[in-house]
């Protein structure tokens, strides 16, 4: 333990010192260059560390994953598209893919709709700050902690026993249940219960962004409509909502990516059992349970391909913003 504390102290002081020292050193190196060349070399020295990190830990591994997905589990032989053929032919993989579609559609819809609802509601009350904090808090905790919290919510005791899970006790008041929420496979009820946990976590994210956009709308626009006799609902539909659409699109893209990458909640709450698996968890099992690195890489490539359209969408949006700047 003492070693660790010493290491920690060295790291906390040493790492910033090394990084600041690096930049200082680049300026010393530049001194030896002729005046005219300095501005051409300097940017690359400042960018160097970032570009090195991105190249070594993001770009090279992405290429590596694509190559690895064409090899067998040992990584010695190329097997063409066999791993992809396995993916398409495996009922487990297809079931995980189907669940990811459920995640994508319902997490995105749920988070955007609830975030919009809360943002519009809190805008009209005096306790806005407290209300926002309450909705926002789940985003600060880990998905693992959220899983523990919701396992207690979903807790199930056999019929007749005292229900200690909040949800089963609540529906018990109305004489319904109990329901083993995470075990019901009909209509993917268990998957929806997992999506609900993520919705609980991410609604605050959507709320914060939508709320910021809402406050950016010129209040005179709304006031003018109200003076003309428009109801609040008409003001919302006719003025507020259209102006919020770009923001809703941005939030949706973030949620689509979150849904595609969903892992922690599934891993912790159900381990992908009982038809709740998703591709990120499937990849983890292929890697660590089965040592199938080729298949795991193919799954990662599928995930990457699913995200590529969003990547280009973001780049396009960025270019537009830059043009406006």
């Amino acid at each position: 333990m003492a070693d660790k504390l010493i290491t920690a102290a060295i790291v906390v002081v040493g790492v910033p010192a090394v990084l600041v020292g690096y930049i200082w050193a680049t300026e010393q190196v530049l001194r030896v260059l002729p005046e005219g060349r300095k501005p051409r070399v300097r940017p690359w020295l400042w960018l160097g560390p970032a570009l090195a990190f991105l190249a070594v830990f993001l770009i090279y591994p992405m290429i590596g994953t694509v190559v690895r997905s064409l090899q067998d589990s040992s990584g010695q032989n190329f097997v063409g598209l066999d791993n992809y053929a396995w993916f398409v032919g495996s009922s487990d993989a297809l079931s995980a893919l189907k669940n990811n579609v459920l995640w994508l559609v319902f997490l995105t819809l749920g988070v955007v709709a609830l975030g919009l609802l809360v943002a519009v509601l809190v805008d009209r009350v005096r306790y806005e700050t407290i209300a926002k904090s309450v909705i926002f808090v789940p985003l600060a905790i880990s998905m693992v902690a959220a899983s523990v919290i919701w396992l207690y919510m979903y807790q199930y005791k056999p019929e007749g026993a005292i229900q200690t899970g909040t949800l089963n006790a609540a529906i018990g008041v109305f004489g319904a249940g109990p329901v083993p929420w995470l075990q019901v496979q009909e209509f993917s009820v268990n998957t929806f219960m997992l999506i609900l946990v993520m919705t609980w976590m991410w609604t605050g994210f959507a709320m914060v962004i939508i709320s910021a956009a809402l406050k950016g709308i010129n209040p005179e626009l709304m006031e003018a409509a109200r003076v003309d006799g428009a109801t609040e609902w008409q003001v919302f539909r006719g003025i507020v909502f259209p102006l919020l659409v770009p923001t809703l699109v941005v939030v949706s893209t973030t949620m689509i990516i979150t849904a595609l990458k969903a892992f922690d909640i599934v891993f912790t709450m159900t381990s992908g059992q009982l038809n709740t698996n998703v591709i990120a968890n499937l990849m983890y099992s292929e890697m660590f349970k089965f040592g199938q690195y080729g298949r795991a890489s193919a799954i990662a490539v599928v995930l990457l391909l699913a995200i590529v359209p969003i990547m280009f969408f973001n780049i396009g949006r960025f270019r537009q913003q830059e043009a406006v700047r």
Partner: protein
Amino acid sequence: MTAVGAPVEQAGPRAGWLGRHHIGLHTALIALMIIWAVPTIGLLVNSFRPATEAFGTGWWQALFPPYHFSLENYEHVLGQSNIGTNFLNSLFITIPSTVIPLFVAAFAAYAFSWMEFPGRNILFVVVVGLLVVPLQATLIPVLSLFASWGIAGTFLALWLAHTAYGLPFAVYLLRNFMGSLPREVFESAAIDGASAVTSFFRLALPMSVPAIAALAIFQFLFVWNDLLVALIYISAVNPDNLPLTVSIAGLVTSTGGGTEFLGAAAFISMALPLIVFFGLQRFFVRGIVGGSVKG
């Protein structure tokens, strides 16, 4: 959202369900707040109840007398399990993983904002593209890199990985912020003979404090709450270095969530994020908004 209740009697400003003084508005909002808070409160209450009680009755029973709160779950977690060590491990992983990318990103963002070089725009577009790359697409090659460097399972491996994973967002956010600082400030500093290093440390960095604070909180929470990266690069190789998330996830999967001290463990893991969150919420919100709807 539809108008509920009796037909609106007087048309006009603030009329209807969404009106500022309408009882429906407050009912809906307070109901949402309760729904959002109950899951956490339930587990918090249970974490202070003796195991026998938490097993026998719902957490809401503890809110009525006779009261039987105790710290035994927390004592058990800190005394008998590895949660204490895991907490320190999480700190060792998180602090450098937050500091390093901040510096590296600030250097790059400064270059992107205030230096001219060929390929500047295309490189930044690459950064924007990398924003959404799923970590999963990097895990296997990076794991073999770490293995061949002999650092798999070490904190160093996680610092490097988290730095890289956090960089695209950090560079993006900081460049947008630094790039919107007034140009004259940097120009007059250059005329006065200030070097790039001086303008960076004396001008760009101090003026970017709001964005840096937002990023620091972001990265801190991301790394502290991370499960996947630690699971892949540490758990299989060196169980002594596990952070809280991996160890709690292990407890859940091995016991099916049935252990009484799980709640206490979860709250220990939530303590720091919640402090950071409530203390620095303003910066956190600014970071999210700035990162997503910039422009």
